[in-house]
């Protein structure tokens, strides 16, 4: 979706302000939110792509005004309500009042913590040979999916070069919307700054994205 989350190349957000000696969490509740998202995901309530999609789908004014973990909390609530794990009335009252829905991997307990500290695996067997090879010139398609995609707007319509083949991976555009893993080849595609940003751009800049095969066409 062409959401406000797709920020690459936007102007007006000001300087990057780093906080010296920044704590891991600024408030204890931030850690609780992170832990709930990880736990409910690991219990099988949703996959990582769906959780990203729900944060992107927050109204733009909310997205921009909220802190990072506020977005995580709001996205998690919306997702759990939509998938039937909690009811909107429960969010309103702050107490459980409806029957629970069964989780694919069951209740998340202390014994499950160890396994979530290793990242998931996203590589999958390929159904077809890779269409592009290293060195190929490719164009990021001029497409505007209304749902989740990982093709940033600033690259669409622009020509780059395939630099790495990252194997066949879970396709977020499908996985985020209940369409299954639908594995696709994934490539690192590198663009010249001038190709992306025009003749006034810094000619020493190159930018790469990791692009799934359906995002690309031969140039």
């Amino acid at each position, binding site marked *: 979706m062409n959401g406000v*989350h797709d*920020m*690459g*190349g936007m102007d007006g*957000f000001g*300087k*990057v*302000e*780093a*906080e010296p000696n920044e704590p*891991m969490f600024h408030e204890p*509740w931030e*850690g*609780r939110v*992170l*832990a*709930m998202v*990880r*736990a*409910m995901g690991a*219990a099988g309530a949703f996959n990582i792509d769906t959780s990203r999609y729900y*944060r*992107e789908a927050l109204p733009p004014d909310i997205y*921009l005004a909220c802190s*990072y973990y506020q977005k995580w909390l709001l996205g998690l609530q919306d997702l759990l309500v939509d998938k039937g794990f*909690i009811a909107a009335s429960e*969010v309103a009252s*702050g*107490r*459980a009042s409806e029957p*629970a829905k069964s989780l694919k991997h069951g*209740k*998340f*307990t*202390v014994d*499950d*913590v160890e396994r979530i500290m*290793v*990242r998931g*695996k*996203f*590589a999958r067997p390929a159904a077809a040979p890779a269409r592009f090879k290293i060195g190929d010139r490719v164009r990021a398609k001029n497409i505007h999916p209304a749902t989740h995609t*990982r*093709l*940033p707007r*600033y690259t669409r319509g622009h020509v780059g070069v395939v630099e790495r083949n*990252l194997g066949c*991976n879970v396709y977020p555009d499908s996985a985020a919307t209940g369409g299954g893993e639908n594995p696709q080849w*994934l490539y*690192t595609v590198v663009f010249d700054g001038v190709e992306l940003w025009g003749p006034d*751009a*810094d000619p*020493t*800049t190159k*930018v*790469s*994205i*990791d*692009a*799934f095969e359906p995002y690309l066409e031969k140039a």
Partner: protein
Amino acid sequence: MRALETILTEKGYVEPAALDAIIQAYETKIGPHNGARVVAKAWSDPVFKQSLLEDATKAVRTLGHVSRVGDHLVAVENTPQRHNMVVCTLCSCYPWEMLGLPPVWYKAAPYRSRAVKDPRGVLADFGLTLPKETEIRVWDSTAETRFLVLPMRPEGTEGWSEEQLAGLVTRDSMIGTGLPGKPGAPS
């Protein structure tokens, strides 16, 4: 937020003790010290460095202390000709096992919007100016690949142990928004 945790607990989805354990694991097990050990090893051991650049996941798994790294880790090397910098314009993708949870600035709009269009301007916000002819390569983390920048080894560190070297490796130097510390300078 407490309300949501209460609901999830009452419905039998999560144990509060499990949430405590997740937070504790993040606070104690991950952090830039992991990445710093990897960088220091690469600076000291050319064979390890080569395997890191070829397949970082596999290379890092040979080190016991950070053996739990997930798949899809890619290390990218800074050279006098090229400086690498990592961003996630779409959300906040970041190599957690290597660097810990990302700082607020990495997840916020100013960095995400400008890193791909004006990387030298962003580096200037960090007080870093690179030679005009240096290529700036920005890696936008749009899939599950996670990027670790391998900075250049500081001069004047000949004969240093891996442990001493690791002390010069800053988090930002592994994101590409900073350089490692210099010998004798306060870190």
